């Protein structure tokens, strides 16, 4: 009776194969762990500096992003009400408020930049989203994001209104994405909710 005909052979065989393959995966996983963590961190830092009024070159290397981030961006304090602070020559120039909420397919995470006056938006950027490419995915594109620059957070009601592409805009509103109503509505909901909370907290401090 050869070893392969024994009743226990399939169990041992499966065990050995699993052990070998898992060992390789665990090794590869731990070898790249730091790298993956850095990638996530850099995506976040890039979104933060993109939301702030900082002149950025078109192509940014990972180390440049990190360098710009650590020289300009400071942690949140009581007074900044949960937003990161952008400090230049020892003066507070702006805030970067991380926001997140449900998208159409998966959570959307981003950052909204606000000038030191607590009212003027300096930019919006997203570092995590899984919306339909070409539709909801357009929230990551320049055309959508740059609309926010210079808009005022209205001091009562909805901070920023999302309007249909055919409607005229004022200083508190931006155009939603045509064909991506769900993404626009959900983004508008959580962005405004979180911005309204921040607006209350920051005006209470000022």
């Amino acid at each position, binding site marked *: 009776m050869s070893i392969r005909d024994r009743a226990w*052979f*399939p169990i041992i065989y*499966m065990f050995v*194969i699993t052990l070998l*393959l898992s060992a390789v995966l665990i090794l590869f996983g731990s070898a790249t762990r730091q790298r993956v963590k850095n990638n996530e961190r850099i995506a976040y830092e890039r979104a933060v500096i993109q939301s702030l009024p900082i002149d950025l070159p078109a192509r940014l290397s990972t180390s440049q992003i990190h360098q710009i981030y650590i020289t300009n961006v400071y942690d949140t304090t009581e007074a900044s009400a949960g937003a990161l602070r952008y400090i230049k020559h020892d003066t507070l120039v702006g805030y970067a408020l991380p926001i997140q909420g449900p998208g159409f397919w998966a959570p959307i995470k981003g950052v909204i930049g606000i000038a030191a006056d607590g009212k003027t938006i300096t930019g919006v950027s997203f570092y995590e989203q899984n919306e*339909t*490419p070409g*539709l909801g995915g357009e929230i990551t594109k320049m055309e959508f994001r740059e609309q926010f620059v210079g808009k005022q957070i209205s001091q009562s009601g909805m901070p920023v209104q999302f309007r249909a592409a055919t409607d005229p805009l004022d200083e508190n509103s931006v155009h939603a994405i045509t064909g991506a109503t769900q993404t626009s509505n959900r983004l508008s909901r959580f962005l405004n909710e979180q911005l309204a909370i921040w607006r209350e907290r920051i005006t209470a401090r000022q």
Partner: protein
Amino acid sequence: MIAQKKTGDVILTAVWGDNPVFRQILGICSALAVTNLVLNTIVMGTAVMFTTALSGLTVSLLRKWTPRIIRMMVEVLVIAFYVILFDRALKAYWPDMSRNLGPYVGLIITNCIIMGRAEAFANANPPGLSFVDGFFSGLGYALILLCVAVIRELLGMGTLLGIPIPFFSSALWDRWIIMVMPPGAFFTLAVIVWLARTVQRSKQVTSGGNK
């Protein structure tokens, strides 16, 4: 297997005669999900080729030792191993693409093409030939996905690989938004399957037909 298969025949069968997508209608889920941008599709196709080729090779190498009763467990394990390897490599070295593809790379594990090749071919054929079969089955799949993606991105967004294409990106072309949405994939795929089968059939008729 009665006689040794010829490598050329294996390639032709894998890519055309028995093409996984339009002949066997396998792996449709991802064919629909990731084909609205050409670049995403290329990476997805590469991931499938990588997995079918190497899992074919591995399953074939183990085939004389693997007990028949647990062979499917072993096949799934081997497939999952290569998929996770690819997914992790993307996460570490191409994070933007990894974010674009989201969960779809991981879902390659359940792609029936790969399991199908392991069961139908690699189990009974030598490693080299299994590698070739897996690679070209993956390629046959990737090529169809690419056709779908080119049509969808061009009609839906007016671009290819993100580069605006004259006419399609101009105001003359009203972008077909439905093409980048899931239904666009169904329409496109159906038309491609129809065309490919029509061509195959007309060839069989002119050559006397073997069916």
